[in-house]
């Protein structure tokens, strides 16, 4: 089947984030901006932006992707992992991508970065676990607060206070102290991406939000300086980025508020863990896809390169589904922001000719930066 005969969805307005799918960091240039989502008949399906640079997406199984292009070994392996996922979420896709990169299939730079990224995430989860416990201790036994570097004697004092806090908390939620400790461990990976307490400033989502704010500022400046096609593209990117930032800030505040009352949250966790999980992952869903866009922008070193990546970035801008309006409690004018989305005129060779090798290498480098 040629691309011309594939099912192109011209008008693509997902209602929910799950319907929008999760950005998959493929390295094949023609798969830039591809997203995975659960298919109606089970297993994931891929949404691939029109390779011509025009509007619309193709909804394909992997066999369809292979008819469209020759995916890299990395991408075939990544798709294999995605297919086996029980659920498609930004976290599960990131984990799968990191595992494939750690096999070395996106190059040595991405391999090293994937290993470092995995270690960082483990450390962040441990730290979150500690900070959740600390939050509980400080709430149950108000008094001394602790800095980041604990002295040995402080550690033993803290351990004792933690035991007492958990013991006092246990009857309130009708669980044993061991179960309370296990609940805190369960919560750690859930809250690691958004951070807890003093960690929030350095958490994954906060870092991603800061990067998006920088992108917003720079694309706004570009759009004001360049009254041409690149300026219109930058303007569209800037508008959607601004809405995404606003929504992310709201959902982050809401999620962070959960940990202010640790005792209350533990009580809720026993019965409402799935709902709490959903609240905490909203920022990740909102930010999904922007990392690649920011990396593309910051990888461009000349104005010509910036114009070229703006054309590419404009194709990747994630549509904010209507579901986000419910999350933040206000209407989102996505159509208004995307009105200025232009069809990009690209050379025939782009992403398919001799440039393909350079683009794959660039995408692999971006994988390393994103890990």
């Amino acid at each position, binding site marked *: 089947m040629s691309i011309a005969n594939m099912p192109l969805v011209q008008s693509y307005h997902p209602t929910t984030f799950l319907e929008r799918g999760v950005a998959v960091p493929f390295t094949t240039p023609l798969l830039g901006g591809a997203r995975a989502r659960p298919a109606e008949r089970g297993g994931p399906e891929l949404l691939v932006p029109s390779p011509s640079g025009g509007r619309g997406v193709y909804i394909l199984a992997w066999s369809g992707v292979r008819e469209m292009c*020759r*995916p*890299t*070994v990395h991408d*075939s392996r990544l798709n294999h992992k995605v297919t086996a996922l029980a659920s498609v979420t930004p976290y599960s896709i990131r984990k799968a991508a990191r595992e494939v990169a750690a*096999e*070395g*299939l996106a*190059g*040595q*730079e991405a*391999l090293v970065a994937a290993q470092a990224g995995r270690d960082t995430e483990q450390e962040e989860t441990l730290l979150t676990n500690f900070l959740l416990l600390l939050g509980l201790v400080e709430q149950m036994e108000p008094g001394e607060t602790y800095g980041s570097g604990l002295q040995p004697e402080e550690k033993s004092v803290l351990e004792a206070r933690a035991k007492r806090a958990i013991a006092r908390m246990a009857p309130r939620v009708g669980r044993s102290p061991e179960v309370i400790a296990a609940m805190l461990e369960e919560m750690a990976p859930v809250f690691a991406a958004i951070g807890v307490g003093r960690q929030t400033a350095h958490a994954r989502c906060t870092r991603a939000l800061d990067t998006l704010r920088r992108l917003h500022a720079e694309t706004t400046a570009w759009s004001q300086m360049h009254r041409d096609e690149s300026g219109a593209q930058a303007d569209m990117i800037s508008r959607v980025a601004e809405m995404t930032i606003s929504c992310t800030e709201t959902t982050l505040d809401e999620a962070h508020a959960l940990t202010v009352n640790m005792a209350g949250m533990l009580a809720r966790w026993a019965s409402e863990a799935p709902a709490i999980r959903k609240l905490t992952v909203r920022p990740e869903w909102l930010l999904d896809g922007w990392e690649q866009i920011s990396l593309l922008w910051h990888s461009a*070193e*000349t*104005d*010509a*390169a910036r*114009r*070229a990546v703006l*054309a590419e970035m404009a194709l990747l801008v994630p549509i904010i589904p209507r579901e986000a309006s419910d999350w933040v409690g206000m209407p989102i004018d996505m159509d208004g922001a995307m009105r200025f989305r232009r069809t990009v*005129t*690209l*050379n025939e*060779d*782009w*992403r398919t*000719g*001799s*440039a*393909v*090798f*350079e683009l794959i*290498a660039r995408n692999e480098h971006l994988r390393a930066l994103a890990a």
Partner: protein
Amino acid sequence: MSDRAAGRGGPPQTREMQRNLIAARDEQITRVVAVVDALADRSTADALIAPLRPRLQQLRPPRPIRLARLLFLPLDPLIVPAPRWRPGDPLVPRTALTPLAEIVRSAAGVAVARVEASLAGIVCGDTQAVADAGALLWPAAARALADAAPPQGWSESGLKATEFAPIARGVAGVLENAAAVRRMVAEARQGLAVRPEIIDTVLEAATRRGPEAWNLTFAVLLARLPDAAPLLQRVAAHAARGTDPASRARAERGAEAVLDGLERHGPGGPVGDAELASVGAEVRRIAALLEAIDGPGATQQRRRRVQELRHALDASSRTRFEEGLASAFVAPLREQLEAAGPIDVPGLEDAARRLREIETAGRRIGSAKAYDTLLRGTAQEVMRLDERPGLSLADKVRMVEVLAGPDEAMAMLGVS
């Protein structure tokens, strides 16, 4: 001694020094070039290193950009040794550069001083810094040269007094539009389509400067754009609409001059002197250029010349590919294996990518089987390598993937 004389070899001492330089090692040449680059007046020294230019193109030493080099950067592909230049050619004789630069220095002193201050620490590869400095210098230089009188000492260039004005007007025309042309070319190289309105603006500005300016501007665009077709389409459209009826004839002469230039290639063929990393892009550019100027109205003679050049380009591309495969991939891999040290896998992958760029561009004009055979053979050699610390299965898979494609690489993982 005039530089035109130097172009023929110069006095015995110069010829002797040139012979010594030709025999020098790469690092010695790099040092000599650094000394020449540091000279305030490099006109004589330039003549000395003239025979090294093809080798310098391959060596690409990091060279500080000085005012004269920045000034004439937009004309780079058109600058030829004086003996090759004939009046009316869309080319610039190298001996004219020093006197033209002197005119700019004296007439555009303020801009020159600002630009010279901004050049400290910049080397030729600093694309954005060079573009920014050029955007300051080139318009001022264009104004200085447009109506300039021949400077004292023009005769030192070996050129006639009557040849000054057309050369100066032509150079001024190119410099006036240099920033726009540079941007257009840079964007085209990034994969963006060339916008017709930008071509129109540049050509119309050149037309206002006179035929010499138009000829040189057109020749620069032909030599720089990755695909000449949009340019030729705009010229044909202008001629057909009557907005610039003479442009078709001028474009024909420009195309002839381009063919002349391509036919004068060295023993390595049209891409013999290009560094390996740019061979693929250069093959693609020349192939697109030949296709564009071999349009429906081409004469039999034109067709024959284009055909011969295609054959030469095919052979040149294949030769550079073979040499590159041997010197940049196979030999380093074998040396590193024999040394039993670490394998520079990223470096080998990078070399393989450069080779695939050549192959992808080259197979469009011929020799597809030859490329396939060489790539497959090398990929098989990589597949047979024993894994060891520093050379994992993933490393081998990736090298095979670049050389022979993902299907062959997937087979190594036991997946079809």
